[in-house]
C-alpha cells in the first residue's frame, strides 16, 4: 500500500515538473515569435493579426455583426482584426483580475479608477508601459486628446493606458425632481450647502407622505473640501492646501458638522431609515418617488437624466469643479503586458481615438441597421439600436462621436469649456504606492466597512460613534498608512516643485 502511494506521489511530482517545463517553454516561444513579428517587415501580404480586446459593458446581441464590419476596415487600415469580449459592469473587475493573474492571452483591456483598478494593476505589472509605443505608433493620440489626460494618468512617470477624451473635472450637483420643485414653487438656486437644503426637505416631508425627500444610498458622503489619498478612506489633504499635510478627515471640524446635519436629517425622516444598507435607489427613480439627491455632473447632464428617467430633472452646483486623479482615470484602454502584438494594439488604439468612422462604428453600430444619419454628423437611432447599445464613455475619444438627435450643435465645445473650467486638485498626478502598507490597508478597510456607511448616512449618532471610529481606525494602523503616504507626497512634491 505504502509503495503504491509512493509511486503515485512520484507520478504526481513528475507530472507537475512536466507541466512547469511545458509552460515555461511555451512562454519562451511566445516571446520569440513576438520579437519576430516586431522585426519583420509590414507588408500587406503578412497574415492579419488578431487583437483580443476585453471591454466593459453588457454583452450586445449584434456584437459579432458589427465586429465583422470593423474587421473589414481595420484589416485594410492596419492589417489587424479584432476579437471583442464584453464583460458586464458587476463582473468586470473580478473576472479580469483572474484573467490577468492567470496570464490569459489578451491585447487590449478596459481599465479605470473604478473597475479593474488602473494604478494598482499598472504597478503589479498587468499593463505594458506605453511611453515609446505612443511616440512610435500613437502620435495622433497626443494631438487628439486633451494633454491633461495623458499627463494625469501617469503612474510613477509612465503611461500605462490611453485615457478616453471626455469630461475631465468632477463636479457635484444637487439634483431635483422638477415636478415637485414646480408644485411647491421651490427655488433650487438656494441649495448650496448641506444645511441650506433643510427647508425644502421639510416641505416635502410634510406634504408628500409617499416620497423620500432625500434619495440617499449607503455610499453617500458629504461634499468636503478634501482631495483624498485613496477614495473613501479617511485621509486627505485640503483642496486649498499649501503644505500638503495629510489630515485624518474624521478629526476635521468640516466632517463633524456635516455628520451632525445628516444625522438630524436621518432622525427627521428625510432619508430612508434603511439607508445604511441600501445600495441602490433605482426603484425610487423609476417611480419618481424622490425629491432630491446628489450626483456627479457633466455638460448637459440634466437632459441625460431627464431622458433616462422619463420625467424632468434639474440640478444646481453643490461644489466646485475639480480635476482629480480618479476623474482623469475614469475610462482608459490599456495594452496587456502579455500582448503578443503591442505595436498593432497601439496602432488600433491610435485609429480608435482619431478616426471618426471607426469610432462611430464601434460606438453606434452599422449605418442603416442601427442608426441613420440626419445630417453630416448627427444620427438618429433605429429600432435595431437596442441590439447594439454600447457604453460610449468606455470606448475612447468621445469627442469624435456623431451627435444624437436633439443634441446642441456645440456639444463638444461645451465639453471643452467644462474641461477648461476645472481646477487641478492638489494631488493630481500623485499615486499612492500601497505596497509597504498592504496589511494595514486590509485591516483599515474592515474598520471602514464597519463604520463608514452608518456614520456618513447619519444612521448613528456622530457624538457617540465618531470617537469610536477614530480609535478603531488608529488601532488598525491608519497612522502608519498616513505616515507612509506623507513620505511619498513629500518626495513627490519635491520632485515636482509643488
Amino acid at each position: 500500500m505504502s509503495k503504491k502511494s509512493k509511486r503515485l506521489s512520484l507520478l504526481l511530482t513528475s507530472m507537475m515538473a512536466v507541466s512547469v517545463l511545458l509552460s515555461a517553454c511555451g512562454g519562451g516561444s511566445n516571446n520569440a515569435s513576438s520579437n519576430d513579428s516586431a522585426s519583420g517587415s509590414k507588408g500587406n501580404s503578412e497574415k492579419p493579426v488578431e487583437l483580443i480586446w476585453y471591454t466593459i459593458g453588457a454583452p450586445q446581441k449584434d456584437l459579432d455583426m458589427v465586429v465583422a464590419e470593423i474587421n473589414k476596415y481595420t484589416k485594410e487600415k492596419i492589417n489587424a482584426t479584432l476579437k471583442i469580449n464584453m464583460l458586464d459592469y458587476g463582473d468586470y473587475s473580478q473576472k479580469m483580475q483572474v484573467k490577468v493573474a492567470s496570464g490569459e492571452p489578451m491585447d487590449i483591456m478596459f481599465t479605470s479608477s473604478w473597475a479593474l483598478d488602473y494604478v494598482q494593476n499598472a504597478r503589479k505589472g498587468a499593463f505594458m508601459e506605453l511611453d515609446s509605443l505612443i511616440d512610435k505608433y500613437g502620435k495622433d493620440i497626443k494631438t487628439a486628446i486633451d494633454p491633461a489626460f495623458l499627463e494625469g494618468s501617469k503612474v510613477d512617470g509612465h503611461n500605462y493606458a490611453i485615457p478616453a477624451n471626455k469630461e475631465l473635472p468632477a463636479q457635484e450637483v444637487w439634483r431635483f425632481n422638477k415636478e415637485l420643485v414646480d408644485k411647491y414653487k421651490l427655488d433650487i438656486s438656494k441649495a448650496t450647502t448641506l444645511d441650506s437644503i433643510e427647508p425644502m426637505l421639510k416641505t416635502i416631508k410634510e406634504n408628500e407622505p409617499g416620497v423620500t425627500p432625500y434619495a440617499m444610498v449607503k455610499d453617500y458622503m458629504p461634499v468636503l473640501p478634501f482631495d483624498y489619498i485613496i477614495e473613501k478612506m479617511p485621509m486627505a489633504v485640503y483642496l486649498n492646501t499649501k503644505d500638503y499635510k495629510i489630515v485624518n478627515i474624521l478629526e476635521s471640524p468640516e466632517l463633524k458638522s456635516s455628520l451632525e446635519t445628516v444625522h438630524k436629517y436621518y432622525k427627521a425622516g428625510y432619508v430612508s431609515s434603511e439607508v445604511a444598507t441600501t445600495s441602490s435607489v433605482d426603484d425610487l427613480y423609476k417611480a419618481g418617488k424622490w425629491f432630491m439627491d446628489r450626483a456627479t455632473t457633466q455638460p448637459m447632464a440634466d437632459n441625460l437624466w431627464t431622458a433616462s428617467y422619463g420625467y424632468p430633472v434639474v440640478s444646481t452646483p453643490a461644489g466646485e469643479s475639480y480635476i482629480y486623479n480618479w476623474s482623469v482615470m475614469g475610462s482608459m484602454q490599456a495594452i496587456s503586458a502579455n500582448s503578443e502584438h503591442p505595436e498593432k494594439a497601439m496602432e488600433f488604439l491610435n485609429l480608435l481615438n482619431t478616426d471618426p468612422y471607426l469610432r462611430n462604428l464601434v460606438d453606434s453600430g452599422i449605418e442603416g441597421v442601427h442608426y441613420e444619419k440626419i445630417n453630416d454628423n448627427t444620427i438618429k437611432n433605429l429600432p435595431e439600436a437596442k441590439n447594439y447599445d454600447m457604453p460610449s464613455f468606455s470606448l475612447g475619444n468621445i469627442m469624435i462621436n456623431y451627435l444624437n438627435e436633439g443634441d446642441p450643435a456645440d456639444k463638444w465645445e461645451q465639453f471643452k469649456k467644462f474641461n477648461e473650467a476645472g481646477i487641478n486638485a492638489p494631488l493630481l498626478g500623485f499615486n499612492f504606492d500601497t505596497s509597504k502598507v498592504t496589511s494595514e490597508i486590509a485591516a483599515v478597510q474592515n474598520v471602514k466597512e464597519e463604520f463608514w456607511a452608518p456614520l456618513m448616512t447619519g444612521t448613528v449618532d456622530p457624538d457617540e460613534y465618531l470617537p469610536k471610529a477614530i480609535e478603531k481606525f488608529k488601532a488598525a494602523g491608519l497612522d502608519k498608512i498616513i505616515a507612509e503616504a506623507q513620505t511619498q507626497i513629500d518626495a513627490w512634491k519635491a520632485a515636482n516643485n509643488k
Partner: protein
Amino acid sequence: MKMIGGFIRNIIKDKVMLLMVLPGALWFLFFSYLPMVGTVIAFKEYRYSREGFWASIFHSKWVGWDNFKFLFTTNDAYIITRNTLLYNAVFILLGLVLSVVMAIVLAEIANKKLAKVYQTGMFLPYFLSWVVVGYFAFSFLSSESGVLNQILGYFGAEPINWYSEKKYWPVILVLVYLWKALGYNSVVYLAAIMGIDKSLYEAAMIDGAGKFQQIKNITLPLLSPIITIMTLLAIGKIFYADFGLFYQVPRNSGTLYSVTNVIDTYVYQGLKSTGEIGMSTAAGLYQSVVGFVLVITSNYIVRKFNKDSALF
C-alpha cells in the same frame, strides 16, 4: 520487478473497481492536488510576468510570513475567529440534533406520500442561493415594509431597526442557517435509517419494545457511524464560514460587524480593493491548516473510543 508485476496484476484484477474510482480520482488530482502547488503564492508578493502564470509565481518576490500579518494585526482577529468558531460550533451541534430528529420523524410518518411532501419542502431551501435567501430575510426584517415590523405595529409595539440592532443577529443567523441546511442534512440521515434492516425492528416489537425504545436502541446506535463521519467532516470546515450567510443575509451592515464578521467576510472586505492574491491565499492556507489539524485531532479522539467509526 516482482513488485511491478504484482502491481499490474492487481490493476487487472480490480480493473472494474478502479475504472469506477477513476473519474473521482482525476477530479481530485486536477482540482484539489495540482492546485496545491499554488500555496507558494501565500509566501510571495505576487506580481504579473508577461510569460504567464508559472513565470509570475516564479519571478515574484519571497516575503515570508508577511501575507499572514493582516489576519492578526488588529483585535478584529479575535472577533472574527470567535465568530467563525462559535457560529460553526452551534451550526454543527444544532444542525446534527435537529436533522437526526427530523430524519427519524420523517422515517416514522406512516403516510409515505405525506413524508415525501415534507421532505421535499424542507429540501428546497438548500437549492436557493444566499442572495435569494438574503432577500427573503429582508422581506421579514426590513424596517419600513418588513413583515415582522408590521406585526409589531399591529400589537402597538415600536418598530425595530433590525439591521442595526446587533443583539438579535446571533439568533437570526442560526435560524436562517438551520432553515436552509436542515433539509439536506436530514436526507442524509434518512437514507441511513432506510438502510437499517427491518427485521431488527420486528424482533424488537416482538420483545415488546415501544417506539422510543426502538429509536434509542436500534436507530441511534446504527446511525452513530454516519453521525460521526458527518460531524468529523463538518469539524474540518469549522474555520470556513459560509460567506453568503454572513455577507448577504445581514446586508453587509456595518453596525452588525461585531456579531457578523467572520474570517471569510473579513478577508473579502480587506482584499477586494487591493486584489493581493498572496494575502487571500495566505488566509485560505491558514484556514485549511487549522481545519486539517482539527480533523486529525478529532479523528484521533474518535478512534480512542470507537475504532470503527473513525474516518481513517
